[in-house]
């Protein structure tokens, strides 16, 4: 996956759709435990297509790919979904409308990242803070927190995993804290 510009395009245009996409998949697939894997399939299909040609309308392309992925799964698994994939059009329209939510997200990027950081478990939050705000090295963080450098790496990696979920996957209204 090294075609020029695909990473940039994915981060700029597809990642911001993740929360809506997760919602759509959860709504249309009975087993929530599968959603992460389905999302991954959707991303691969979307990016492989984008390597050949960048879609004109990213949102509708992504959601159409999501619907087709669900249909494929239904066929493969020989199950009859209780809620079929009927919601797509309604959601697709909603997703095509930028709406105040996304505009607000762009404006409040810092607040959003800060809110996500605040929601990390304390040790992970501390490690990420010392690195990204205070600019300490892993060794300095280890000394400051009284732990080994390998543990620092673990905290940072776990903290990053959580941050990505909070930043991309959570519905926007869940991100805000009162």
């Amino acid at each position: 996956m090294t075609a020029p510009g695909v990473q940039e395009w994915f981060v700029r245009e597809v990642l911001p759709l993740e929360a809506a996409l997760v919602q759509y998949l959860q709504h249309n697939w009975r087993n929530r435990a599968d959603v992460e894997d389905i999302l991954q399939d959707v991303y691969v299909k979307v990016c492989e297509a984008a390597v050949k040609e960048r879609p004109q309308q990213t949102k509708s392309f992504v959601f159409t790919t999501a619907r087709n992925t669900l249909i494929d799964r239904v066929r493969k698994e020989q199950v009859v979904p209780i809620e079929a994939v009927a919601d797509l059009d309604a959601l697709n329209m909603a997703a095509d409308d930028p709406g105040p939510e996304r505009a607000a997200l762009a404006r409040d990027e810092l607040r959003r990242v800060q809110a996500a950081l605040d929601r990390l478990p304390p040790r992970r939050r501390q490690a990420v803070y010392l690195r990204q705000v205070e600019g300490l090295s892993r060794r300095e963080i280890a000394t400051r927190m009284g732990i080994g450098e390998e543990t620092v790496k673990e905290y940072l990696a776990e903290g990053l995993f959580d941050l990505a979920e909070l930043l991309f996957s959570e519905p926007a209204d869940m991100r805000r804290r009162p």
Partner: protein
Amino acid sequence: MTEALNETSSETTAREIKRRAAAFVIAHRTSDEWSDADQQTLDAWLNERPEHSIAFWRMDAAWQSTHRLSVLRPQQSEPARRSHLMSRTAKAVAAVAAIAVVAYAGQSAFRPNEKVYASAVGDRKILTLADGSRIELNTDTVLRVIQSETGRKVRLDKGEAYFDIKHDGAHPFVVEVGKHRITDLGTKFVIREAGERVDVSLLEGRARIDAPDAKSAVLTPGDVAVATDTSLSVRKTETRRIENTLAWRTGLLVFNNTTLGEAADTFNRYNRKKLVIENPQTAGLTIDGTFHTDNVNAFVDVVQHVLKVNVKNNASEIVISP
């Protein structure tokens, strides 16, 4: 294998892939010694399945977004902290912004090969390069990092920067300032671009400075080189004195038998409200002390009481007269 990335487990679920991607991003972005072997391990993993690349992009985007947090760094304005100027606390609260320089594996096609970093008046910034080298930008500084396959190059367009460079014989680290080139031979050094001249002070290791007229000098610890378009001179000083001039790295200025004129010039680099010394005799008085870069008022108080001078504090400037 400095980063010990070679776990044998292979991931099957999306969650496992994401966790692995997060570990790779952290290993890569926060490493002090990212080796070629580490890079090969990462490349191999990224190329194994498109799922891996995509998960890596996603995690990397999340990590990059946390750079915005650097604006949350603690402010230095509380008077209580002034009293422990050189203490650990002061050092800890000193404003530091961290920026990791982007260097992706396998996505070179859209990697910008030049990045510009700038610090505002009174600000500082720390860059950590992919190879673990650190560059600290002092106040009002513009610096460009130019990445290429063969070497590591930086251009200091304006201001002052401290360099702590990981030596790599195969990939020399070069700093260009005006028409001068400084080549690191494994070092810690500081360069200041001051209009007509360039000052290079060497703290550790060795570096070579090449002036435009083919003059060059190899610097060893304690050397301070002053280069203009037509001259190059090197003098020896104690490394302790160079360290004093680097106190800005923790938000401090150390004056040691420094004239009021020099001290005012120094403060004026860090602050918009300028110090003006009205007569040459006053400018020649000397002063000792340690001050916060952003606390001109503390400096003026000391000057007023110790040197018995007059101070007029206007909206735009502070005028010191006999």
